């Protein structure tokens, strides 16, 4: 695959050297565009924070204290739902492209022995990583943090274990369950609140904090497993 790409690159480079004029004119145009943008930005008045004031005024009703989490999971939760669904679709397509039913569903065993110091270091390190992930998930309601950050950090812990050559063994149904869990929980909550409030994703007063936490926990599991599956499946290419 890369041979084709490198051959194509050489052809492209060869063609481009013949058209220095086009490249120069593009460079000049881009420089002019950048200069005009900076000039306009420097001259224009700072934007009036109308939406920010509206959002901050409603912050007490959102169930969380962190404005970013309030926007992500309350004001604009439809966007976040679509983001998580997007991740779900990507993992599904990657899984269906690279999953081999003839192989064992478990991750392949490492091909080398890890050093004893690395193994003992990991034994202390991995619980700490999971603890940090849980902290980020919980603190997302009050301070910077949240499901994406927590999921990414726990997944990086898993990847560290795989990189040093240790197996991570768990039953294969956890994969299937956790991939779907984030989207399924989000959609279930969205439809369930529609019965009480009439529109989807409008949390009933008082229950917003619990529902947001439920969605975030499910999304964290889903994101963790999705990123870890990216790593595993790409390693199999």
């Amino acid at each position: 695959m890369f041979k084709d790409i490198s051959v194509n690159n050489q052809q492209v480079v060869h063609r481009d050297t013949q058209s220095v004029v086009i490249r120069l004119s593009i460079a000049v145009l881009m420089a002019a565009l950048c200069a005009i943008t900076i000039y306009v930005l420097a001259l224009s008045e700072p934007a009036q924070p109308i939406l920010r004031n509206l959002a901050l005024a409603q912050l007490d009703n959102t169930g969380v204290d962190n404005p970013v989490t309030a926007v992500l999971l309350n004001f604009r939760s439809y966007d976040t739902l679509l983001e998580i669904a997007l991740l779900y679709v990507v993992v599904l397509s990657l899984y269906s492209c690279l999953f081999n039913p003839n192989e064992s569903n478990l991750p392949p065993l490492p091909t080398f022995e890890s050093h004893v110091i690395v193994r003992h270091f990991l034994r202390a390190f991995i619980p700490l990583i999971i603890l940090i992930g849980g902290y980020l998930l919980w603190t997302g309601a009050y301070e910077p943090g949240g499901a994406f950050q927590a999921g990414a950090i726990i997944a990086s812990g898993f990847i560290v274990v795989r990189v040093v050559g240790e197996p991570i063994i768990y039953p294969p149904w956890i994969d299937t369950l956790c991939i779907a869990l984030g989207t399924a929980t989000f959609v279930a909550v969205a439809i369930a609140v529609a019965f009480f409030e009439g529109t989807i994703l409008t949390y009933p007063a008082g229950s917003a904090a619990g529902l947001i936490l439920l969605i975030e926990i499910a999304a964290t599991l889903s994101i963790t497993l999705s990123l870890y599956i990216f790593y595993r499946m790409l390693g199999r290419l």
Partner: protein
Amino acid sequence: MINTLIDICLCAGIIMIATMSLTSQYLFKAIVLFMCFGILVTLAWVRLNAWDIAIAEAAIGAGITGVLLLVSLKPNSVPKKQTEL
């Protein structure tokens, strides 16, 4: 004053690292530069007071994306001149 200086250095560094990564002849070098780019962008988000995005960028942009790129680079039969630094 010192903050402006930091911002200017950060912007120049980001553009420089991005250019180096895009124009690098070797894929491995390009990936490592891309991870450095992620770290610098993290610092830029911190300077913009966007701590949420800074954490996500450090974990996903600098960490996991780099690992994914490296792991998808490794097993392919890349021409040797592209894997050497």
